[in-house]
């Protein structure tokens, strides 16, 4: 396989960012690793061609296709849909003002659980737009759809997330501890 060093350089540069995307696409560390490694193996097979274009976008596209394919086959998916009620209760019980380190863990659980309830394309739009910070056009390219579809999917996904995690995502009610809010933040 030509260009092994180029491929290794690419993985060293983008591996961490792609890992984060893979995790939020699947919500599961094992699945995320499988997803990313599958995408990287396919990329390695086509590296000579892929390297001439945008390898990072290529890997993201393979991950989204693969994730959707898994979702369609279901049998591969180990993640369990989370009932909306327990999720809501979890969010409601979270103390917004608490600096408890467990708060961050709870927030992470709520976010990943809410993402798990989105259909794959809505989930992909959320990850590409708001984690990877891709533009609508770049998201459309990564997903192989139109910008209009991206807008529609994002709108639906945000509405769903707003329902699933209202205390985290409702306008004006969200609170994230900033450094100055924490005991070690140097606040006066």
């Amino acid at each position, binding site marked *: *396989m*030509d260009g*092994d060093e180029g*491929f*290794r350089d690419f*993985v*060293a540069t*983008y*591996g961490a960012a792609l*890992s*984060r*995307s893979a*995790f*939020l696409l699947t919500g599961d*560390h094992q699945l*995320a690793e499988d997803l990313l*490694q*599958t995408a*990287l*193996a396919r*990329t*390695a*097979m*086509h*590296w*000579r*061609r892929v390297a*001439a*274009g*945008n390898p990072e976008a290529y890997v993201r*596209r393979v991950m989204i*296709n693969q994730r*959707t394919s898994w979702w*369609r086959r279901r049998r591969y998916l180990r993640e369990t849909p989370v009932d909306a009620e327990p999720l809501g209760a979890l969010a409601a019980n979270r103390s917004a003002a608490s600096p408890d380190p467990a708060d961050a863990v709870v*927030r*992470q659980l709520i*976010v990943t659980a809410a993402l798990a309830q989105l259909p*794959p*394309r809505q989930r992909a739009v*959320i*990850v590409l737009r*708001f*984690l990877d910070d891709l533009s609508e056009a770049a998201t*459309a*390219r990564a*997903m*192989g*759809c*139109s*910008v*209009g*579809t991206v807008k529609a999917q994002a709108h639906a996904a*945000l509405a769903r*997330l707003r329902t699933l995690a209202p205390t*985290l*995502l*409702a*306008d004006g009610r*969200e609170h*994230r501890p900033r450094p100055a809010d924490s005991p070690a933040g140097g606040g006066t």
Partner: protein
Amino acid sequence: MTEQLRALLHDAAAAVPDYADADRALRAGRRALRRRAVSTAIAAAVVVVIAVGAASALRSDPRGGTDEAGPVAPGGEPVYPAVLAPPERAAVLPASRVGSAALVYAPCARDCDPFLVLDSGRQYRLPRLGSGTPTAGYTLSPDGRWLGWPTESGLRIRDLDGRGTRDIADDGPGRTSAWAWSADSRWILAVRHTDGLAHHATAIDVTTGARHRADVSGYPVGVRIDGRLVAWVGDLASAAEPAAALDTVDLSTGASERTALDLGPALRTGEIATGEELQPVPGGSLAMLPVQAATPTDILGPASAVLVVDLDTGRVVRRVDLPPSDRSQNTQHWEPRSYEAGGITLVHWTLERTEIVQLDPDTGATVVHSTLPRDSQVLLRGTRR
């Protein structure tokens, strides 16, 4: 809300470990290539047995012969053998005149040699140009006369009906590769690209060696019979957002003319068109634009139709629906490759075989021209892949 969500997502992903393992991916990639090669070899062996039988039956058919027929002069329609399989012993392509070619194919997806198939039926083994698809890198002119391939320093175009060659040297970083032919086979468009955005284009008149170079914006997709470059402007076009345009660029002067494409009425809901697969239609003023179907669960759908676009007016002259591909199980699918005088040439992939099929755009009738082993890779005249 979006800023809050962005922050929450970054928080949630902050502690995610780096799963990426390049060496494991390289090993997995190699294993996959080997597995594919073995399964293809078995399938190819089966097809060879079938081919031997078919060849016996076709002995009186001139397309079945491989050695007796003399060189065929370029200019006619490609002649596809009814059954295509690698000959037991295939010579390498000689430097002498061999006549026009119908196609380049490889009997597998990876790890096998490609073959040049002449209109006389004779096959020559070609060297593989890399570790990717065996036919990748080659290009064949629409009249079957010129065969091109990348070299260490650029691109070489060889006259199969003579002994002449044309060389296009790399004139900077990045690789120069063949991107398109004019409908009359006079011009080839070669592009050197370095970062996927900058395109350094060269149009060469293969009959005289005259060439024009320029850096172009947009995505080069074709070359007109007068040597002007055609570039796709914009991104994906869909029924909801049908805006697209073509720039026609005179590489000798840099003069550019933009033609808006009116694709909206011809695209159906969920269909997407990009200019990457634009193919010239004989005559040169029209081009074939494949359309892909996308569904909420089918991110990259198969081709559902082709549009025939007037390059001067941007008007869609006609829409031709393709036979349906199997989107749920992916047991078979169709790819439009070229528009020839006799109709639209498609490659049909099934679990058992690969076929070269011609579709009559008026009646929708299909005729199988050639049957190849499963997973065969096919490069037809004048096409980019």
